[in-house]
């Protein structure tokens, strides 16, 4: 089988000044994953690594750079799935974690569950030795700016719809 990897960096509105950063970010992420496949690594390792790269890149709405909730905080969701076994692991509303996708994989591999949420996910992360990061590390100036400028109800419906996208 010829290895293949495809990544996306989100379907939300990408402002003109961030277009090239977004293009560069997905190219770098796909190459990180592809190198794993070229070395004979697994699809599971490749997708995890590609997503980690984008979580670490503040251009994208995941990990560092995540959008803010109504209180101006960050709560993140992530999932990983193995097509060989149909095993899956997920976390939801998790806070102060740099790479939720890694925690998802631990849920898949180290528990009998499919999804852990909120406080339970944080507790599990601690038990797995995943360090907490300060909330301020995950927030960017761009995410703070977007939160402050969030479009009110009644604005242009297409723009409102774009703002709803994860």
């Amino acid at each position, binding site marked *: 089988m010829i290895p*293949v990897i495809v990544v996306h960096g989100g379907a939300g509105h990408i402002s003109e000044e961030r277009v090239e950063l977004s*293009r560069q970010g997905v190219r770098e992420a*796909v190459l990180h994953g592809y190198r794993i496949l070229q070395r*004979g690594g697994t699809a599971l390792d490749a997708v995890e690594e590609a997503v980690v790269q984008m979580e670490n890149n503040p251009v994208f*709405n995941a990990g560092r750079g995540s959008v803010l909730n109504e209180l101006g905080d960050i709560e993140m969701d992530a999932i990983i799935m193995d097509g060989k076994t149909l095993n899956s692991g997920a976390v939801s509303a998790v806070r102060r974690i740099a790479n939720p996708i890694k925690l998802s994989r631990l849920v898949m591999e180290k528990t009998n569950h499919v999804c852990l949420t909120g406080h339970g996910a944080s507790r599990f992360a601690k038990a797995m030795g995943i360090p907490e990061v300060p909330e301020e590390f995950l927030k960017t100036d761009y*995410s703070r700016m977007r939160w402050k400028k969030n479009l009110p109800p009644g604005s242009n419906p297409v723009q409102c719809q774009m703002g709803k996208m994860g």
Partner: protein
Amino acid sequence: TVGAVAIDAEGNVASATSTGGRLNKMVGRVGDTACVGCGAYADNYVGAASPTGCGEEIMKVTLCRLILFHMEQGKSPKEASDIALAYMFERVQGFGGVVVLDKTGDWAARFNSKQMSWAAAKDDQLYNGLYKDE
């Protein structure tokens, strides 16, 4: 939201998705990403998918599982993605996009939003795009 799908030399597929969710969401909101069949699906018998877009609408149509259903019926990743995205728009006015591949390594990056940044690597070739028809 960010996501990835891959197939390795052994023919195993996988999918991963991660997100900060929706801007200004309610505290405790969980979107599609954490839900199997919505925020990701992978099955060696068919393929794998990872979505992005309006989370609530993706959940209502279980977008990834819907795409794999159409692939099970013989559609290509591109055809299956377009059918499922059109269905999501028609039924719940949802916007979004997906990266998909099947068990043979055929792949697609499709969206009904204005933009979706994506990249793919196969046969030492790198592909990427942001706007429709790229």
